[in-house]
């Protein structure tokens, strides 16, 4: 089994299309889930999964089979998603999507009204994409800082810094709107 996987990875690295198809079917769900966590948009997550594998296919020669496929794919997926976030017009386009996405959590705090939740989500959407991705993964999705660092290709210290800056900017934005967390 281990040899089979290793063979597929080696064949993919050499540009074998069948090996790529095998890897696509094995990892598309994981890539989709990862992207969905960041975008919270199923249609965009599907498109970005395809974009990710397109990029993966194009750089197959750079793949190191010894380091495994999943982490490498996740890193490329994160980069593709970051590019997508940067290309969006953020607030105006995101606000309608986020209206749908701002669902009442299972254990909702009664002190936090729907309006505050919406304003918070919209303020979050206004953050710079690279800060937003770090905060989404580390704070909302509660991924380990090491995993976030690997996905973003930065150090754990840089992840902490980005999350700190994201939260600080979010607080400033909310305070301007009269919301004191």
């Amino acid at each position, binding site marked *: 089994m281990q040899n089979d996987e290793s063979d597929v990875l080696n064949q993919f690295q050499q540009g074998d299309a069948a090996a790529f*198809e095998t890897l*696509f*079917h094995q990892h*598309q*769900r994981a890539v*989709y*889930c990862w992207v*969905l*966590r960041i975008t*919270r948009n*199923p249609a965009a*997550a*599907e498109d970005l*999964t*395809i974009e990710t*594998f*397109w990029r993966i*296919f*194009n*750089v*197959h*020669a*750079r793949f190191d089979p010894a380091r495994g496929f999943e982490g490498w794919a996740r890193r490329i997926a994160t980069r593709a998603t970051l590019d997508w976030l940067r290309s969006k017009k953020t607030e105006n386009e995101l606000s309608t999507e986020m209206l749908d*996405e*701002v*669902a009442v*959590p*299972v254990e*909702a*705090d009664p002190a*936090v009204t729907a309006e*505050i*939740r*919406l304003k*918070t*989500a919209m303020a*979050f959407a206004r953050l710079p994409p690279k800060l937003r991705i770090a*905060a*989404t993964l580390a*704070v*909302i*999705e*509660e991924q380990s800082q090491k995993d976030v660092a690997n996905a973003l290709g*930065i150090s754990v210290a*840089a992840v902490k*810094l980005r999350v*700190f800056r994201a*939260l*600080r900017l*979010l*607080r400033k934005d*909310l305070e301007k709107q009269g919301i004191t*967390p």
Partner: protein
Amino acid sequence: MNKDDQDRIKKLLQQAMPPVKGESEPRRDLWPAMLRRLNARPAAPAQIGWAWFDGALAFGLLGLAAFFPASIPLLLYYL
């Protein structure tokens, strides 16, 4: 911003944007779309494109860091 402030903002953010839990699946099989994408245009050779201003920017930043080491934390902050 102290730790309590951070914790309050984190809680508010988690209330506003609940995590995407569970294992989600794409709503459709993505392989046909992947095939269309692959067939649409040949794969570009893997290479990194450097415009002249990329090099100039990198050179400028290296120079700044070399001559003004105090600027390194500021550069790292904006990375």
